[in-house]
Structures are given as C-alpha cells and as structure tokens.
C-alpha cells in the first residue's frame, strides 16, 4: 500500500486534487481513497489530505500517520511537514523552483517544480489564490511513477469537466515535464 500526505492551504483546492489523484489511481486499476483531514477548513490555513493506493481492496479508514510520500502545494508550508514521519524511501514533492533550505541535508529524495508559475501562466487563479493542486499532479506522476499521466488527465477531465479541464491538464503536463527529482 502506498500512502500520500498532501499539505496545502485552505482554499487552494487540495481536497479536489487528492480526489483527482485517487480517481486516477482507479483508472490505473488500483484501489484508492482520498481523505480530507476532517475539521473546519480556513482559507490560507494549513490543510492536510491523504491518498491511499493499493492493488487489493483497501479496508483501512484511518488518516495516514506515516506516509510513503508527501506533497506540499505551497512552499511556505514546507516547515509544517514532519519529515521523520515520511518513509525514508519516499519522495517529498514540493511546489518550488528549487529545493528549499528546510530539506537540504535531509538526504531525502525531493521532487520539485514551480507549479505556481505554471498555474499563473495558465490563469489558474481564483479569488487571489493560485491553484496548484492539479498542476502538482503532474509532479506526482513524474516523481512516483505510480500513475500514468493519461489516467491523471482522464481523472482531471472527469472531475473538472470539459470547460476547465484543458487548462488544468496542460498545467499538469507542464509540471510533469519540468519536475526535477534530486536527493537533498
């Protein structure tokens, strides 16, 4: 079983992103779950969501305590990540043009991409918030290889609908291209 922790800011679409990812996993033939951390959400405040992937049916309903991978949608939130809880073999994915200082020397595998710039370029901005949730799915596909881009695209299409999906798919694709994976 693979477990993802996703950290984002309230209002930036993290929950939707997690759901799209779980849906993509379904197309991949995996069983999956997307779990928003249960509680009052506030725009700008830190929000967690979890995604589980498994080849057999999932019967676990807990939040994820020790994620395989972690994904941080806003680089300013990186400090909120408890790295020790993430599997040593896992990948830390981050929306950033570079490896943040915070991760340096951790010897972790870090995948990074400047999703904010990509999203902005494509106009993925809602009431002042740049939406990087979908964009970062490209990073996930690239970094983990768990899910093929085509399935991520299919899930984006299904969830967001024909009107706004294309821009988002494009964003995810660009992120896929631009993601770099390095050991920090």
């Amino acid at each position, binding site marked *: 079983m693979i477990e993802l922790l996703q950290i984002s800011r*309230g209002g930036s679409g993290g929950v939707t992103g997690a759901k799209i990812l779980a849906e993509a996993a379904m197309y991949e033939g995996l069983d999956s779950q997307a779990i928003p951390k249960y509680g009052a959400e506030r725009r*700008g*405040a*830190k929000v967690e969501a979890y995604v589980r992937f498994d080849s057999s049916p999932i019967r676990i309903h807990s939040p994820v305590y020790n994620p395989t991978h972690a994904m941080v949608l806003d680089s*300013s939130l990186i400090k909120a990540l408890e790295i020790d809880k993430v599997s040593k073999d896992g990948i830390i994915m981050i929306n950033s043009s570079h490896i943040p200082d915070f991760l340096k020397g951790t010897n972790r595998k870090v995948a990074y991409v400047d999703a904010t710039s990509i999203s902005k370029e494509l106009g993925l901005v809602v009431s*002042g918030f740049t939406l990087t949730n979908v964009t970062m799915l490209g990073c996930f596909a690239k970094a983990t290889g768990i899910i093929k881009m085509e399935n991520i695209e299919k899930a984006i299409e299904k969830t967001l609908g024909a009107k706004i999906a294309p821009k988002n798919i494009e964003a995810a694709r660009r992120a896929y291209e631009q993601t770099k994976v390095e050991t920090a």
Partner: protein
Amino acid sequence: MTEKEPSMPILYPIEGAAGLTGDWRTQRPIVDPEKCKMCNICWQYCPDLAITAANKEENKVIVFDYTFCKGCGICARECPFGAIHMEKEVD
C-alpha cells in the same frame, strides 16, 4: 470514594487559540508612515486585532502584528489615505 471534580469541556482564554494565524497570510499589509494620518480607522476594522493603534500625541503610526494578521486586506482597503498596501508574502 475520593473527592473528584468532573471532567468537562472547558477552555480558558488565551491568545493564539487557533495558533499563530499569521501563518495563514498570503499577503501582508505594509503601512507608509508618511501617509498614515493616525485616524485608526484601520484599527477599528481589523477583525484580528492585528493592528496596534496609532497615537497622535506620541506621533506613533499604526503597527501590524504579523504573528496574527491573516492578511485579509481590510485595513488597506479602508484606509482613507491610501497609507496601507498589501504585498505578496514571499516564501
């Protein structure tokens, strides 16, 4: 039977009950001390008590408390003198 007080859902007043809400901010207010007329209209409208009021007598302009300011932008919007502007937080 030992005397025992019931366990109840009681909380006491503290600052930062919801944490250091400055964390939520994606943009921050900046005051231009030149322009601030110390009217304290911004002080009045801040839902987060994140402005220390200006003091005309002491000639002190307003000060922001970035530990708690959520960056809503009301102060900037409401300042009649355009003395406050919002800047994107840098990562």
